[in-house]
């Protein structure tokens, strides 16, 4: 290389292979870093609350606090809200967990995910849980999409038989893609429960029932 420019040119042309063989190849964008990017996006969404940018106003803050306390006492949070027995995971029966949307898609071919999600919501968590040590077909699949503090939860689990109206004292019953869907449209519970092909789905969250219906309609395996 020291003898002339032509040699420099020749060596430089082999740069891709040389970098592959060098220590620089250690520089990889790891899963941890990918996860950090997703978390940062989530955090940035949370930080965009405009009222936080305004000056501190003690009176307004007290009013907000009082309203929050009132709401907390009156309305159970979505996370604490009891998921219906039909779609809940019994923690004692977990025999294996798969996390991450791509991993869950690979592991559970029947996993249905939405192709529609309301504007601003991003996927923050997807898990697949095996619930029987002896039967690998028994599983619960769970996705969570959030925008700031609002989240939408989608649960899918085996259920050989469709739920009945007696089990679900819903506010109304509608049809989604030809299947009976139970709609809960209360201030503290907005949820759609639908059964098809041996699976029961629960789609719920702090968005309108109309949006929940659109999400439910968009569920598909690929």
């Amino acid at each position: 290389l020291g003898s002339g420019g032509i040699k420099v040119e020749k060596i430089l042309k082999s740069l891709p292979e040389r970098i592959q063989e060098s220590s620089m190849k250690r520089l990889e964008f790891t899963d941890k870093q990918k996860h950090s990017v997703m978390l940062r996006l989530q955090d940035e969404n949370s930080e965009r609350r405009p009222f936080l940018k305004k000056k501190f106003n003690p009176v307004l803050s007290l009013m907000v606090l009082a309203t929050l306390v009132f709401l907390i006492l009156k309305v159970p949070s979505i996370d604490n809200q009891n998921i219906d027995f039909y779609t809940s995971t019994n923690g004692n029966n977990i025999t294996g967990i798969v996390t991450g949307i791509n991993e869950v898609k690979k592991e559970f071919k029947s996993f249905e995910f939405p192709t529609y999600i309301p504007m601003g919501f991003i996927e923050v968590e997807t898990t697949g849980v095996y619930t029987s040590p002896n039967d690998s077909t028994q599983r619960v699949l769970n996705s969570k999409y959030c925008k700031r503090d609002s989240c939408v939860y989608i649960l899918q689990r085996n259920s050989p038989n469709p739920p009945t109206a007696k089990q679900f004292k819903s506010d109304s019953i509608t049809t989604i893609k030809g299947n009976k869907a139970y709609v809960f449209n209360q201030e503290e519970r907005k949820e759609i429960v639908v059964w098809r092909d041996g699976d029961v789905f629960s789609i719920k969250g702090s968005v309108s029932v109309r949006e929940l219906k659109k999400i439910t309609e968009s569920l598909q395996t690929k």
Partner: protein
Amino acid sequence: MTEENIETQFIAAPKNEINKTEFLRYLMDTYGSYVIKLAYSYTKDSSSAEDISQDVFVKAYKSFDQFRGESSLKTWITRITINTSKDYLKSSWHNKVRFFQNKYFNLLNAKEKKTEIQFIDKEENDRLIKGILLLPLKYREVILLYYYQDVSTKELSFLLNVPIATIRTRLSRGRKLLKDFWEVEE
């Protein structure tokens, strides 16, 4: 399905949150290593390169709505990486840290540099990379993009916003500096 087909699908798909998140995952899986190496060629520091890479993907996610597919995804992500790396190098925070380290932590800094250089010196091939990393930025970026990433002089002109003739001059001077470096090392 080829990468090109996948990218065309992403560009054509409605820009909703699901597609954007899928797109972001695809970008990170496909171009993650490329972006971090490119950022490293600017900062010469692996930790900063990691931070910059994350910034690049956050920016890509946010500006995906504006991406119309007029250039390839690789060109687009390269441009974001170059701009983010240069912003980092220009940032007052970076300069303050560098000043602080130089002034008060020479020993510590020297120790860190030694580690980094040891890392670079490990193999014969790293000698060439070390030479490139020691080049001034304007030569380093064109050498790496042209020879390592196979970016044409025309694309370089677009990416760096300088005339093609300037790109050719920088390539030529970069090669000359590398040659001198190699002769000194020998």
